[in-house]
């Protein structure tokens, strides 16, 4: 079917993001849309935003959305709650999560004791914080965890010592506010397992009933991702243009996206590919923090069967 003549025949896919508003991690989807990759796969993709950072998985199960972008820990928790979710592709391939402090601060893991750490109160941060504390040789009771609706003002006002974030958000955020790079401890340095942070997920029933749609979607997203990686400035500008009221500056979007690109491929330069290891590492973290009771076999979480050839 041709793109022009048959818009009526496009299959509609509702894609739910993991955050209540748009930000630069959605750049590949925007790129796929603008470059017509979805349309040429016969898809019409609606991007929707959830009420809060924890509801995307519920929206998938209710059918409010068909395919979603969620953190791997949300994925695991949902499966534990008997929500029939299936992860169909990794978004990023490594763990860039960690601690961020004001530029120029003398904070390290060595003087972590007694410090105030910011958390969004989400499953991911809950799972990761104990690893950091353990690496510092402390117990959770040695630090104060603060949860609030926003971290940056608190950090800059000195109300908290560390905030938690991923490098592609934490660095441009603090750079934008201060003009300097933050003090950061991420990934292995922070003691956290190398678990990818985000995945594309759908429900098992949708995946089996609409296997071709899922495949077509991932194919278009792959093209979008590759395009946005190759044309970083243009892609970031396209995002800014698509969501002018997002509240983020063009500079933030550009820097954030450029920091995201290196995370998208594995050591072999491949996109999307999931492994058993990443899910069992995650299981360990979640069981240790009592966020899930039992650790399912990794294969219950994911399938690489829908991945496009690359």
């Amino acid at each position, binding site marked *: 079917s041709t793109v022009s003549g048959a818009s009526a025949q496009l299959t509609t896919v509702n894609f739910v993001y993991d955050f209540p508003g748009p930000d630069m991690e959605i750049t590949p989807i925007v790129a796929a849309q603008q470059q017509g990759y979805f349309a040429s796969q016969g898809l019409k993709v609606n991007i929707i935003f959830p009420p809060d950072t924890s509801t995307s998985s519920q929206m998938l199960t209710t059918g409010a959305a068909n395919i979603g972008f969620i953190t791997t820990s949300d994925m695991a928790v949902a499966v534990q709650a008997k929500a029939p979710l299936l992860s169909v592709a990794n978004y990023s391939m490594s763990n860039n999560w960690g601690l961020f402090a004001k530029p120029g601060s003398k904070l390290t893991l060595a003087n972590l004791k007694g410090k105030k750490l910011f958390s969004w109160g989400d499953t991911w941060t809950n799972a990761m914080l104990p690893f950091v504390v353990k690496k510092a040789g402390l117990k959770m009771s040695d630090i104060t965890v603060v949860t609030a609706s926003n971290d940056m*003002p608190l950090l800059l006002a000195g109300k908290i010592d560390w905030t938690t974030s991923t490098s592609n958000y934490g660095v441009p955020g603090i750079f934008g506010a201060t003009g300097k790079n933050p003090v950061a401890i991420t990934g292995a340095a922070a003691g956290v397992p190398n678990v990818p942070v985000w995945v594309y997920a759908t429900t098992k029933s949708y995946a089996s009933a609409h296997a071709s749609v899922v495949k077509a979607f991932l194919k278009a997203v792959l093209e979008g991702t590759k395009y946005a990686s190759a044309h970083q400035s243009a892609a970031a500008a396209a995002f800014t243009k698509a969501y002018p009221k997002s509240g983020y500056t063009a500079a933030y979007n550009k820097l954030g996206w450029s920091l995201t690109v290196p995370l998208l491929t594995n050591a072999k330069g491949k996109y999307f590919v999931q492994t058993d290891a990443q899910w069992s590492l995650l299981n360990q973290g979640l069981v240790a923090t009592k966020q899930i009771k039992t650790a399912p076999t990794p294969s219950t979480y994911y399938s690489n069967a829908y991945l496009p050839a690359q």
Partner: protein
Amino acid sequence: MNRFKIFRNLVVPVISFSALIGLWELIILWGHVQGYLAPTPLAAWEAISSNWSTLWPLTSWTIKETVWGFGAGAVIGILFGVLMSKLRFLQRSLYPVLVVTQAVPIVAIASPLVLLMGFNLGPKVVIVAWIVFFPVTVNVLDGLNHVDHDLITLARVLGARPWRTFFLIEVPATITPLFSGLKIGATYAVTGAVIGEMAASSGQSLALYQHTQIGQLNSAGVYGTTILMTAIGMSWFLLMITLEHLCTPWLRRSVARRWSRGARTLDNTYVVKGAK
């Protein structure tokens, strides 16, 4: 005298607000407060005016939410009030339930609502209505229950038809408490809309805009947005005051206007000459 009162009632609030804004400016200046912590009034104003093209669609969206939510809340509130005053068993069984609905932290049920109703107008309207209906119900119920019973007897004596007593006696007697309820509801309507927007905005909303401004350390934007939200609420409040004035001429005038109820039915032949 009357002129003086109007003047006083308008000017005094203006003066107190100016004083408040002046105080705010001084605190920022003297306290050497950093721009990312709190803006000056001028900065907050500029954050509104210079982003007006962005803010206006968001604002109008919020207004739309309050229009529907306030409307629904008012209608439901009046309905509940009327039904409960007419059916005693409903009053006894429903009233405690309604009190409990208000004790439920609305922020806590926003998410379930979104799951149920999606991201568009739905959940915001429900939340606004949830907040607005209660004071309206309580006031209408109280009002109807306290209509001078002798007036009802009078209507019976005059041989009133069913419903006539309600519309000609009970409704006008309840206008003042009704508007008290509506004014309270109006004050809180925007709070409801903002809670709804925080819970669910499909991409764009004042609340989300503010959220990102907080993230961006743009305190001027944050305060500016708050001012905008407050302004919407105050507009509703002022609208209710105006409507109340228009609906209750007998409380302020001694002679009916030509076009008002009662005078309207007055044939020209009978228009009196000497009426002051």
